[in-house]
């Protein structure tokens, strides 16, 4: 079998991360305290493929592009990076997607800045592009189109763009434009160097296809876009669309048939599925969970990609929706917790007013600290384990803002969670601002890093009991335990170095 259009990415993306999505984030760091191969083994093991080198699970974004191209009649397939050599002579167009091509996104840029070491995701992507199959395919005239949420990073790596012969960078939702570009590429027509997909070319719900192969860890999109308008986020620039339940269930079924062991409901704010503005409505949320859980049965896992803290608090306080969902639907002997990413971003209501005034709605932004604390309590009581982000170094941030953040993190100590500090990366409407780097750190930032590190270390072993309860995970668990031990040993020394640095 040959393919005209090959869709691919590097190993840090083309992996199911041992079935644990959160382990994928380990690829955003540089290999510390162990060889890179071992680091890759933890975060990005090779994925099962068929005889043609097509992965059983592939990143969801690539699956959408594959589906749209096949529906349009193209001979296209996703191919694992280790199997590209099979198609060197036949592939005419290579499409590549990534979340963080060059490690400029959060949190990669932060680990890079703090340690001075190149993160693994960047190393892995550069290896892919320098690999013999990619080089040979280009020599034979293949055209390369890159896209995905990190497309913007190419505008900072123009030398690589020329070196690897990247023809086009696509920024934005790819369903419509990719069909157009691939058609042009196959006809040998000139391609634009850069395309931004404007609102006039964003696909409607009916134009977003059902995936044709399984997605990594069963991720299924339930809505696209976000109504909250946070200035640092690019998702909020996209129009809001809800996927019909039938479409969601079809994708769950595709995943189950391929043997995927669970579902991740993907949205920037799962509880806003079919919501009334920013107020969750119980009926669509319950129906969604009821139907999805019916499909996956009692043994497969369920996770949410993201949820907003304000929606979570509102849902529980007004409808007891969280406790109902967890106790009546989600939790059982096999599903002992539900994982989700949440955004705290700052503990300062005045900074929140400037950069994310919609994040607290329907509550006033002045109550941001109470919203965060209440929602963490609700999650703790209902066995929802959040991985929360805090962003340091926003353009208008003051020392008082950072102190407020420290105070908030301290209030969250009783609640089971991981809190990950991130350095500000210019994205969304703040895209033209400057990166926050190690040399911009103030003493308050170092204190904030320390408080978050202590919080996450405090809860990490407890969370691992939930997260990796199966004996199958013993080897990975052992390596992770070693890693936590190593970090504990090193971090105090490193914080001392940072403290000395900021005093100067």
């Amino acid at each position, binding site marked *: 079998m040959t393919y005209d259009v090959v869709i691919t990415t590097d190993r840090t993306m083309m992996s199911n991360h041992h079935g644990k999505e959160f382990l994928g984030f380990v690829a955003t760091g540089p290999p510390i305290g162990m060889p890179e191969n071992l680091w890759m083994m933890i975060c990005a093991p090779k994925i099962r493929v068929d005889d043609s080198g097509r992965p059983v699970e592939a990143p969801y974004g690539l699956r959408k592009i594959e589906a749209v191209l096949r*529906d349009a009649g193209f001979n296209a397939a996703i191919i694992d990076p280790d199997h590209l050599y099979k198609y060197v002579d036949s592939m005419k167009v290579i499409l590549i997607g990534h979340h963080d091509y060059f490690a400029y996104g959060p949190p990669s840029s932060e680990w890079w800045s703090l340690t001075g070491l190149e993160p693994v995701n960047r190393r892995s992507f550069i290896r892919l592009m320098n690999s013999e199959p990619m080089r040979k395919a280009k020599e034979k005239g293949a055209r390369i189109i890159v896209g995905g949420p990190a497309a913007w990073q190419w505008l*900072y790596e*123009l030398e690589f763009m020329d070196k690897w012969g990247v023809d086009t960078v696509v920024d934005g939702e790819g369903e419509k434009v990719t069909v*157009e570009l691939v058609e042009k590429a*196959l006809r040998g027509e000139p391609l634009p*160097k850069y395309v931004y997909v404007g*609102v*006039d070319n964003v696909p409607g719900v009916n*134009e977003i296809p059902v995936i044709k192969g399984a997605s990594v860890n069963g991720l299924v999109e339930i809505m696209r876009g976000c109504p909250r308008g946070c200035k640092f986020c690019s998702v909020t620039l996209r129009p809001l669309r809800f996927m019909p339940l039938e479409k969601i269930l079809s994708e769950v079924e595709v995943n189950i048939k391929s043997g995927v062991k669970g579902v991740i409901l993907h949205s920037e704010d799962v509880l806003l599925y079919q919501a009334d503005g920013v107020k969750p409505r119980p009926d669509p949320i319950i129906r969604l969970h009821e139907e999805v859980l019916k499909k996956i049965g009692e043994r497969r896992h369920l996770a949410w990609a993201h949820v907003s803290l304000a929606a979570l608090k509102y849902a529980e306080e007004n409808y007891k929706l969280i406790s109902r969902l967890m106790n009546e639907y989600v939790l059982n002997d096999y599903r002992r917790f539900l994982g989700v990413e949440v955004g705290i971003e700052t503990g300062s209501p005045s900074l929140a007013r400037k950069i994310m005034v919609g994040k607290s709605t329907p509550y006033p932004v002045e109550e941001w600290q109470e919203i965060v604390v209440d929602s963490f309590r609700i999650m703790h009581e209902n066995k929802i384990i959040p991985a929360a982000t805090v962003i340091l170094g926003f353009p208008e941030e003051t020392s008082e803002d950072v102190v407020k953040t420290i105070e908030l993190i301290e209030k969250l100590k009783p609640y089971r969670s991981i809190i990950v500090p991130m350095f500000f990366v210019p994205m969304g409407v703040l*895209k033209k601002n400057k990166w926050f780097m190690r040399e911009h750190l103030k003493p308050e930032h170092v204190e904030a890093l320390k408080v978050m590190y202590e919080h996450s270390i405090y809860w990490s072993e407890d969370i691992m009991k939930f997260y990796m309860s199966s004996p199958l995970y013993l080897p990975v668990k052992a390596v992770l335990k070693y890693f936590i031990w190593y970090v504990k040993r090193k971090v105090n020394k490193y914080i001392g170095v940072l403290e000395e640095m900021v005093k100067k």
Partner: protein
Amino acid sequence: MIKAYHSMFAYGEKYREPLFTVIVLGEPNKDTVSKLHYILRTRGLNGLRVYVVKDSSSSRFLESLRDFIFSNHTYTLEVFTAEYEQLREIYEKEGDRIVSILVSDSNLVQYVPSILRNKLEAL
């Protein structure tokens, strides 16, 4: 192979190409970029296609367009690069869509055919 392309969009619309085109002759400079900002704001609603015509095929020119590109969150924007010998082809292909030709160096005016001189903006 691509026979199903049009039937696919029976339930939607295919990609809408930009309705307006700007041609930049020479490496973009500060004035060109500022003019592009203005054109995008006033004409961007139906998408904008920009051709940067210059001596080399390097992608380096995108660096001077980066802030312009990043300031856009709304409109469809296509940026092409071409060499001077391709100009005639571009003029023919884009025709009435061309709304402006931006020239940063007066020596490059010679590349603008007389019929398009009214679109010329020397910067």
